[in-house]
């Protein structure tokens, strides 16, 4: 999965996860601190923590091969179940295949989990049958709490300032007397 608005990116405290225009969502291994916030934030369970290295890995869409070759998984798949290509082309193909199968599409077309996953499944049955989660198009509240709770420091600082102000007032009164 390489979501349009990746939830893992929001959860990462060190900005180690980047979304590229071309599609891939990458983890910068040098920046990763192994906090596993992304592991639990991702609704698809894509980033995997590696206890041996203490860091998180995920599919990087073979960015080092792509302009010239297909990703390794696509190339190696013996039955040709995986296809790789330009976004519009792929959507086109998915629609055609869906019509053939009279099935369902999970990914970029009808429902767009997290703004679209850049990974389209064409399925015979409903997605839930295959264990694909029903994900909304925006990030979950847990992750936004994780991301934005630091703003509570502002009211805390304001409260502290109010103390200082009333204390100062007290001090001034004390001096006047």
């Amino acid at each position: 999965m390489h979501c349009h608005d990746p939830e893992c990116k929001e959860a990462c405290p060190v900005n180690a996860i980047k979304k590229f225009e071309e599609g891939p969502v990458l983890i910068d291994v040098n920046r990763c601190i192994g906090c596993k916030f992304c592991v639990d934030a991702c609704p698809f369970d894509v980033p995997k923590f590696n206890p041996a290295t203490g860091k998180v890995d995920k599919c990087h869409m073979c960015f080092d091969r792509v302009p010239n070759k297909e990703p390794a998984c696509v190339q190696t798949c013996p039955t040709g179940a995986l296809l790789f290509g330009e976004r519009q082309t792929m959507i086109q193909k998915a629609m055609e295949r869906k019509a053939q199968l009279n099935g369902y599409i999970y990914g970029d077309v009808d429902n767009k989990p997290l703004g679209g996953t850049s990974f389209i499944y064409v399925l015979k049955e409903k997605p839930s049958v295959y264990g694909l989660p029903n994900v909304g198009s925006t990030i979950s509240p847990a992750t936004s709490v994780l991301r934005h709770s630091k703003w509570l420091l502002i009211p805390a600082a304001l409260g502290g300032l109010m103390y200082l102000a009333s204390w100062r007032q007290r001090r001034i009164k004390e001096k006047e007397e």
Partner: protein
Amino acid sequence: MKTMDPKKFLENFGRPETLWMYACARCGECVDVCPVFKETDDKYTAPGYKIKKMRALIHKQLMPFGGGADKETVEKVAKGLYECTLCGRCWSVCPYNYDLVDLWEKARESAFDNGLAVDAHLQMIDALKAENNIFKMAHDRRRKWATGLDVPVGEKADVVFFVGCLMSYRGQLKPSAKAMATIMSAAGEKWTLLENEVCCGVPMKFSGGVESMKELIEANVSEIESTGAKKIVFSCPGCYRMFKQEYSKLLGDRVQLVHSTELIDSYLKAGKIKLRKSDQTITYHDPCELSRLTGVIEEPRNVFAKATNSYVELPGNKFNVECCGGGGLYKAADLDRSLAIAQKRIGQAENRGAATLTTACPSCYMTLSQAARQKKSEVKVSDFAEVVAQLLE
């Protein structure tokens, strides 16, 4: 009569005091050692609990929408503040080394300003205003203890003997004032009494009514300066500490302040006086004001090393001395408990097998001797100077 305003209670706390309220480590060490809390078992006498409540009161004042403190708590806290011997045992164990004695004194000031003072303390202050002593006895009787002795008064001299109210007026203590005079004369010191000695003002400080303290201080300072003294000798650690804290601001470095124990030790070292060695088992109760709060710890022991063959230490001595129960005007606030604490101390002296319990503080002497009588104890309580004077060669 001053009125109580819960919002104004503890308003005199400045920056350090307020911060210390919050910084308090909440370790509870002070609760364990407080002599008054051990006796009363009332939460409001425990130092840590008082700080907790005082912090809550201050917090309500500081908080932008805090509202006021409630009257009942203020009254309870003020009552607890006066149920304290100001011995500083809490300070001695405080991990932050915070000057708790100063805190209690400041808090008492505020309690006094809010009209929460103990009645006995108010009477004492009235007496001070009227007759310049805490017993409301005629001022011209102040030097009556010296009858029969040839005592220089109001002369120009290097050394001034500041007697203090207790020594001057209390019958039991008059012999020890005399003893001190004898020792100084025996050492060949050129000394004098003040013509118009008045109370040093420490009772006012302890009760919180510091406003009326200034007149007394000024009166004493002008008296001392007229004698041109270079050294002031105290028998009372209360006066001694008061001079060190308040008077030294006015007197500066010109005048040296010494306690009688320090003076006698220096005489012995210089060979000005000599002592016979007695075989009595003597023990020494460190007055809190002297040992803990001003640091005169070794001097009396040096003297005893030369005065007796068997000197025993009490448990809880030197820096960690346990209060006799008479400090900080606690006796005026709650006599029975104060004496109960003193009886414990007498019991400790008995356990150590002491025949004589000496102390270098008239207030401790009064409390301990009263408790010894009450307990019908074999231990004889006597003043430090008295013991030394008896052994003079």
